[in-house]
């Protein structure tokens, strides 16, 4: 397979009255065609900003992509003009956002919003666009598609709106779909429906997907590879199997110990990390996870660890290099 996307040293800052927020601080990863990559992390770790940077949707001011390279289908996105970028966005790169309530225009009909993309990018006649829109609506499992096209977003339930968003993302047969918390606002049964739909559609059409989520269960069910982010950096990456069965960064380990699991005996206590994520305006020259880390050593305060390979294809940014003696695992 060929590389669809290569990101190198992407750095995005926000300049606020409280100081410079290093929302994304030099992240690098790549994506192959048809692959599903998950970016996990907690609020404020930079996962959404990294995706917005990728699409060049960072509002400037206050935000700015200060450094890095984004190569998508052989093009350097950061050197394109706004016009050229508009041609890629929505065409080769589809987007599904978290809030289906706010990401659709409330005063335009569903049909108009769907065909807009098609007419803009594919140069088709309104009649053909309408036909394609109908097809797309059926593809994402909306019954009575013809009637739905003439309706407004408020006529639709949350799950339906998210289906419309997916239809819009798929409209121009993109190579990549970026889904930012696509199911967070939905109920579990609807979440299962939507994720299954996205999985099937991306597989059938060979679309690569970057799914951004805080839900470790969703990641486990759908992702091939996982990037874990903390305080604007990728602190661990690897295959889903490696991340879940052999976490090599203390933060990943802590995340996994924070969620109760339904397939395991009801444990007496969860074992979360203490404290909270750091203020991104006040990062120093050491590892950002250091104040909450149980494995902290002197070196952590002095230098920021870079991603290094610990086992085949698995990388961690930790001075322990993946050798964590887990007191809990040993006890059990």
């Amino acid at each position: 397979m060929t590389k669809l996307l290569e990101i190198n040293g992407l750095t995005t800052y926000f300049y606020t009255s409280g100081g410079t927020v290093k929302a994304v601080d030099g992240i690098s990863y790549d994506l192959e065609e048809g692959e599903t990559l998950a970016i996990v992390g907690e609020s404020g770790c930079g996962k959404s900003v990294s995706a917005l940077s990728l699409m060049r949707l960072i509002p400037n001011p206050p935000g700015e992509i200060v450094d890095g390279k984004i190569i998508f289908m052989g093009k350097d996105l950061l050197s394109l003009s706004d016009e050229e970028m508009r041609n890629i966005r929505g065409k080769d790169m589809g987007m599904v956002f978290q809030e289906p309530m706010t990401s659709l225009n409330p005063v335009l009909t569903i049909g108009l919003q769907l065909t807009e993309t098609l007419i803009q990018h594919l140069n088709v006649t309104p009649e053909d666009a309408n036909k394609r829109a109908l097809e797309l609506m059926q593809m994402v499992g909306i019954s009575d598609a013809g009637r739905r096209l003439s309706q407004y977003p408020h006529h639709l339930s949350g799950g339906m709106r998210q289906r419309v968003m997916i239809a819009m993302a798929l409209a121009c047969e993109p190579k990549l779909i970026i889904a930012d918390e696509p199911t967070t606002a939905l109920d579990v049964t609807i979440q299962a429906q939507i994720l299954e739909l996205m999985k099937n559609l991306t597989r059938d059409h060979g679309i690569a997907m970057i799914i951004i989520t805080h839900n470790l269960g969703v990641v486990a069910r759908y992702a091939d590879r996982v990037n874990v982010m903390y305080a604007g950096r990728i602190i661990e990456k690897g295959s889903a199997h490696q991340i879940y069965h052999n976490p090599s960064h203390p933060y990943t380990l802590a995340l996994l110990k924070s969620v109760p699991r339904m397939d395991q005996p009801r444990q007496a206590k969860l074992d979360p990390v203490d404290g909270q994520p750091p203020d991104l305006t006040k990062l120093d020259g050491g590892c950002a996870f250091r104040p909450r880390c149980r494995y902290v050593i002197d070196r952590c305060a002095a230098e920021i660890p870079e991603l290094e390979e610990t086992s085949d294809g698995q990388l961690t940014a930790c001075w322990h290099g993946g050798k964590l003696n887990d007191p809990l695992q040993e006890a059990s």
Partner: protein
Amino acid sequence: MSTPKIVREAETGSGTSIDLGETLITVKDLKMHFPITEGVVISRTVATVKAVDGISFEIKKGETLGLVGESGCGKTTTGRCILQLENQTEGSIVFEGQELKDLDQKQMAKVRERIQVIFQDPYSSLNPRMKIGEIIAEPIHVHKIIEDKTERDARVRELLTICGLNPAFADRYPHEMSGGQRQRVGIARALALNPEFIVCDEAVSALDVSIQAQVINLLEDLRDEFDLTYLFISHDLSVVRHLCHRVAVMYLGKMVELADCDELYDNPLHPYTNVLLSAVPIPDPDVEAGRAHEIVKGEVPSPINPPSGCVFHPRCTMATERCSQEIPEFREVKAGHWVACWEV
């Protein structure tokens, strides 16, 4: 903490089998219907939303009952009825032997000292213009528990410490704190009156996983330390399993299943419980790969015009003719395992 003698007045018809522990709260045939009105000057009712439509259960002292279901199933309304923030349309709620709807304002104020609530959103449930100390002291002040200001401040500091916060936070405002810290403030406020019973309405849903786990642990510690009884309302089935002794599943205003926690998760009987459990992804790619995903079709119908018979029948794979006509009775099929389904 003193506990008044519990007098069980109403004999319960359904909900749980009474075997151990005293019953703290009994809900029987609770209905909460909201009218939808039309017209500004002369308003008339055009329809009703049957948010809660005849549910019964009991909570024993020291027990944590989980109430799960999807948006709009009536779980929050049930909590609000117990708190008497809504005047129920029908049915009875008996707390420590007192029928809540028969109490006058003064008696109800007394009961409110014993029933507290923790809300979902730590951002909107704290007054942004009040300091943390004032927020926590307010219930103590209103209920005239501690009249002396110095003593009250000491109590506030104690509560902050119990909830894992720095006592110095009393002088801060909510906007200076993170979501997890605010939720701890909400918990401290709920504890201020030494309650017996706390309704936790999606109390950890808005928090990030590592912070969520901290707050879950805090709720567990407090339960053990102060002998608290919780009604834990949540849509997160993994968290409910971790925290609760018994679990009730609601769908469209009805209770469809109620059982001990392990029994419900290991041996779910109602088809809705089954799809709900199957929909929850487990954080392990290998387990997920080998798991059958039963995906329920369709969406939850409107509670204004719910389906006839069993409310779940349009989405149910096991539905028969009978399901669309007759409402299944909520019955005990095994000791302590209640279910409302014709096919069980």
